[in-house]
């Protein structure tokens, strides 16, 4: 319990630091939004008036707390380019990106864990050697190139889907999920390869430790030793990796959306960077940041559930 409280406090501190940095980056560094808004029609009087209207004349910390408060209540400001609220712009796009991220995460786990375990179990066999080589190769292919290759192979050659033919989930849930399967696969493949390798080496490393010999000496079968003792220990580094991966996937999906023309927050981010639409960029970055921090928090808690050694000292 103490551990959870401490981790929660630490998460809160990180949230504060990160959001302050984002606030600094997008509200202060790019220059005066009043100047940007008025453009050529700016006169000193108009600027002062607008600044007062926008609350820009107040001290920085006050502005930060105002900003974070309204952000947490869902008011993320107004887009420079479109003049509509950032919230309404994001509303329809977040679920799409979440769905993509979630799908690829599930794919990674479903493919890599059984594969990693069998690669370790059948070490020194042809199967294990083939997985080794495949892993090394697949790992080296960046997700966006995997995406292009999938577009080409599955879309243009095999006609399994129409590249660029995004199906909205409002139109057809099944069609949407089927279309999303391909970009999710593109994101998942390199990470899956990495995880298979990690799990394999982790299992093999654990299998050399003394407690495994103890387990055998009590009459456990090979499978019992693997599933009752080794696996849980071997999963500890895998959880760390999956936590890091999850935040990588979020970033990966921003790029993959571009490859498969999916109208998620990734494409919006790129467009907004191009337009220098700082409220939108800031909002997206902050949301992604909060998600990443939250994932790390969950990973920390998971550790504590799995590994009793972290409970005492933390």
């Amino acid at each position, binding site marked *: 319990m103490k551990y959870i409280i401490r981790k929660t406090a630490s998460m809160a501190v990180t949230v504060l*630091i990160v959001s302050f940095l*984002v606030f600094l980056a997008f509200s202060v560094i790019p220059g005066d939004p009043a100047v940007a808004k008025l453009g050529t029609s700016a006169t000193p009087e108009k600027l002062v008036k607008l600044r007062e209207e926008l609350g820009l004349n107040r001290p920085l910390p006050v502005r930060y707390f105002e900003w974070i408060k309204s952000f947490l209540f869902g008011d993320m400001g107004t887009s420079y380019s479109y003049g509509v609220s950032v919230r309404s712009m994001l509303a329809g796009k977040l679920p799409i990106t979440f769905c993509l991220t979630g799908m690829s995460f599930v794919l990674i786990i479903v493919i890599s864990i059984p594969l990693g375990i069998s690669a370790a179990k059948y070490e020194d066999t042809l199967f294990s050697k083939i997985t080794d080589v495949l892993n090394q190769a697949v790992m*080296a*292919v960046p997700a966006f190139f995997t995406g*292009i290759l999938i577009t080409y192979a599955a879309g243009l050659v095999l006609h399994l889907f129409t590249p660029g033919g995004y199906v909205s989930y409002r139109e057809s849930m099944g069609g949407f999920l089927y279309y999303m399967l391909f970009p999710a696969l593109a994101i998942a493949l390199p990470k899956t390869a990495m995880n298979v390798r990690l799990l394999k080496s982790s299992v093999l490393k654990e299998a050399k430790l003394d407690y495994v010999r103890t387990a055998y000496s009590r009459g456990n079968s090979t499978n019992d030793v693997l599933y009752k003792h080794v696996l849980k220990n071997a999963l500890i580094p895998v959880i760390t990796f999956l936590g890091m991966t999850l935040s990588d996937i979020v*970033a990966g999906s*921003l790029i993959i959306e571009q490859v498969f023309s999916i109208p998620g927050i990734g494409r919006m981010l*790129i467009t907004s*960077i191009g337009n220098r639409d700082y409220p939108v960029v800031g909002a997206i970055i902050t949301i992604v940041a909060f998600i990443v921090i939250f994932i790390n928090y969950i990973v920390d808690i998971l550790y504590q559930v799995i590994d009793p050694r972290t409970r005492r000292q933390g």
Partner: protein
Amino acid sequence: MKRKRLLNHKLIAGAVITAFVVLVSAAGFFYTPYDPNMMDAASKFAGISLKHPLGCDNFGRDILSRIISGSGTTLVIAFCTVLIGSVGGMLAGAVTGYFGGAADEIIMRFNDAVLAFPSILLALVFISVIGSGKYKVILALGIVFIPSFARLVRAEFIKCRSMDYVSSAKLMGASDLRIMFVHILPNTMKVMLSSVAIGFNNAVLAEAGMSFLGIGVVPPDSSLGRMLSEAQAFIFVKPSYAIFSGAMIVLMILGFSMLSEGLEAL
């Protein structure tokens, strides 16, 4: 006593691939078969031929020449990025790891916060504030790479600072600076070397990703990521363009990652 092997097959394969990639791109600074930006309407989408070994793109530019010069740009960016990241990270990690204390805690908390993010996303934040272009990409990625190196060097320093040889150097009256840079630093080099290789890997990946999104290098510079995004538009007519430029990225990453693993296994 177990004798460690001096070479392993991963190290050799990684070194060969990396050497090939580096040589090809270095040669590109002096000679490419064609001017990589020379357009030639007559050879638009030309196929593979003796004249154009990898064919031509939508503007009739020679793909081989573009790949060679694009790899050069990508590698230069990766090199500078890793240089900034490793030197900055080394200094920060050495100081925080050796001295510890409150400054260390603050810097590392900040570091952890930054490290939790995918590097490409952070670089995007920078780029969106300072604008894109070759040098700005280097700056953005370089800064973004500092924390990971810092964490690594810090961990090594923490490991070393409690070693008995450091205690005995202190007993003899060696200064902190001397202990940090003469006694401890050489012992972190092995770890540094393999993480520099993996740093190249990440830098290539990040640069390619950013340029692919069109917020990395800007024309007339061309990099592999940028070419891949151009090629994606013509994947219907000319898949080989995308495949060749992508393959070059894959080759680079493969080389650096195998090199890193090979070094680690030494």
